[in-house]
């Protein structure tokens, strides 16, 4: 916007200039990155993702490739489909995971020992996509006039009905399906064939990873073209204002149906791949839990943003996996705290006070404990470099459990108190809050990261990120004028 100054100022309202100012405010490396990202062509942006993604399987172990690579990609592929229905067209589809399941079951039915069909993937995957898309169409047809909450209720019901259906469709007994076992009931389908695409037998994790990467890129590029086409624009218009879209020549009902069918088809595609990766399809896999995960991915990345889906999937799938290891969990914890403090505490005087105060408080308490109560610092620090540094700052009692439990409760109480305080009081109380929180973490939670703590921390991370950027990491801020 360098030539902005030379343009006549008439008609340039303050709002616009304030927006420009906001964008220019990002200086230093972050601002440089943002402007670079905004100005680079889409193909270059894609490379930022593709190059590491292609190198990844050749530098990591099989287990890591499965957990961090393949599952993340599958989630991202699912996210792309949900992005069409929710992100582009703004339809709150809570039955989305059922289409994922339909893909997996369809693939499983035609390519497993269950019914002794062994279709090759080049036929079975299109069938899975078509069946999922068709069911999406059928569900969408009666609900295309519903909006918002009502659509959410109907689709949520459909999602639940799907789970009940697959649990019971092993003994269908009416004409013309006498004694048909469609889904294997509660046991699911097993022995699903590995993918066999035009004679290429996909067997190893690495091959699955590369196949899924290809599928993801294909869907991503196709969707990118759609989003810039008349259909993509119409979807966005319908999300913004359905009545205006209808009056402005867009057939809203048809467009909703299309978005629904499209999202379902992509979910079916992901389902077919997932079915063959798992070599099975089980009713429990296609339930609300996964739905929430995929929604978290799309919302965290920024609804409507294709790049956001990748980053969202990396965070939502990657972080809980990282947290399995207490050393990595340590890094995640302090990063979350740092992001929270840095983004939320303004102005810089308060920020400096909080950070400086927390560090000083730690060392002071540590010194006092060292001098008078040696037992309080006798606890074992975790292995790992960060934990080693932390052990000079944090009081680690030799028998911490009881105390840490109380610290945990105290942290929650302090956070509640924080929300009631204002101004400098809030800044000052924040210092012990962080310290007590870190105490509970070091002495209690870090040991249990395999269990519930993982998800607690992931939840906290999501809250922090959404607070820092409500529109999602790659979303653009949505504005309503009333």
């Amino acid at each position, binding site marked *: 916007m360098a030539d902005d100054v030379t343009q006549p100022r008439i008609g340039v309202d303050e709002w616009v200039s304030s927006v420009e100012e906001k964008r220019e405010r990002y200086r230093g490396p972050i601002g440089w990155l943002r402007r670079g990202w905004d100005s680079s062509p889409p193909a270059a942006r894609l490379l930022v993702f593709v190059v590491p993604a292609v190198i990844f399987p050749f530098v990591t172990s099989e287990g890591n490739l499965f957990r961090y690579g393949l599952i993340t990609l599958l989630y991202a592929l699912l996210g792309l489909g949900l992005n069409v229905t929710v992100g582009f067209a703004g339809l709150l589809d809570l039955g989305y995971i059922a289409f994922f399941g339909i893909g997996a079951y369809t693939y499983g039915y035609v390519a497993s020992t269950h019914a002794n069909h062994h279709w090759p993937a080049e036929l079975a995957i299109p069938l899975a996509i078509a069946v999922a898309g068709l069911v999406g169409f059928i569900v969408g047809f009666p609900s295309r006039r519903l909006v918002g909450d009502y659509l959410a209720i109907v689709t949520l019901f459909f999602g639940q009905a799907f789970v009940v259906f697959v649990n019971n469709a092993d003994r269908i007994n009416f004409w013309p399906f006498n004694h048909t076992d469609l889904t294997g009931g509660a046991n699911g389908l097993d022995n699903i064939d590995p993918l066999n695409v035009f004679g290429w037998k996909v067997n190893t994790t690495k091959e699955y990873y590369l196949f899924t990467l290809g599928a993801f890129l294909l869907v991503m590029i196709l969707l990118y*073209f*759609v989003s810039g*086409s*008349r259909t993509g624009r119409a979807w966005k*218009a319908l999300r913004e204002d359905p009545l205006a879209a209808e*009056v*402005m020549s*867009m*057939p809203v009902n048809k467009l909703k149906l299309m978005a629904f069918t499209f999202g379902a088809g992509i979910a079916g595609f992901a389902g077919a791949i997932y079915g063959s990766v798992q070599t099975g399809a089980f009713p429990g896999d296609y339930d609300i839990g996964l739905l929430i995960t995929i929604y978290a991915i799309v919302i965290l990345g920024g609804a409507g943003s294709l790049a956001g889906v990748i980053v969202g999937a990396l965070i939502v799938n990657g972080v809980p996996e990282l947290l399995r290891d207490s050393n990595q969990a340590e890094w995640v914890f302090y990063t979350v705290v740092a992001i929270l403090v840095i983004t939320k505490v303004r102005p810089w005087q308060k920020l400096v006070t909080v950070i400086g105060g927390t560090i000083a408080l730690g060392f002071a308490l540590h010194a006092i404990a060292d001098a008078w109560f040696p037992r309080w610092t006798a606890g074992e620090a975790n292995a790992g470099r960060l934990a080693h540094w932390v052990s000079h700052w944090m009081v680690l009692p030799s028998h911490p459990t009881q105390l840490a439990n109380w610290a945990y409760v105290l942290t929650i109480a302090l956070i509640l108190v924080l929300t009631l305080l204002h101004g400098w009081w809030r800044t000052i109380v924040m210092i012990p809050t962080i310290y007590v929180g870190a105490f509970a973490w070091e002495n209690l939670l870090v040991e249990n990261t395999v269990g519930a703590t993982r998800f607690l921390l992931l939840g906290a991370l999501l809250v922090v990120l959404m607070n820092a950027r409500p529109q999602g990491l790659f979303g653009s801020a949505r504005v309503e004028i009333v």
Partner: protein
Amino acid sequence: MAEQPLLDLRGVGKSFGGLACLSELDLHVNEGEIVSVIGPNGAGKTTLFNVITGVYRPDEGDILLDGESIVGLEPHKVTDRGVARTFQTLRLFLNMTVRENVMAVQYGRTKSTVFEAMLRLPRSRREERQIRLNAEEKLSFFGQRLVGYRWDQPAYSLSYANRRRLEIARAMATEPRILLLDEPAAGMNPSETHEITELIGQLREEGKYTILVIEHDMHVVEGISDRVVALDHGVKIAEGSFDAVATDPRVVEAYLGLRKAETK
């Protein structure tokens, strides 16, 4: 009146739960004409627009566009036939860019399917180019106000007056034969109002549009109208030149309640 009117409403009635918003309304707009609809609040002016554009279906009567009935068509089909409108309460696609707003509404005039768009087949690419050029042309109708760096700004960042202009540009981009403008000067300052008055004249001269406009500002109505129609309680109470309608005792009564005061 030998020639067939472009838009012809015959005995149109619409009521909501016993409340008649429009009744027995006859109204016609000839090709190239600018007709203003005036009336106090609640007179049924916006309902009239909603009935014409297919948002509401009239309970009785017929609406003919160029001799063909458009009653019962879905709104987007009505738009395809050549009727475009703006909204009194602005209904832009706020989180889309200025250019996207004008590009999106050309949906009805283009044909390439979503599969053609995916594979970027020639027809899709050709249409995209055309849509973009067309959008930029429509936006340049407003001089410097909606061009250049404004193209890529979100619609919400525009000032109120510019949002009104964008609404008109968006309606123009559907290539209508008749434009329905719902209070285009509402909320504008005197100089902007003056500009809008000139713009509506330009729309007819350069854009060759036929225009039906709802307006409260009598200066605007005086400046633009070939003919004025006054509504009150859904009934047409006067029709004719601005001077004739503005001095019509029934219109004066509808606005000021004068006769009641006199009889007391």
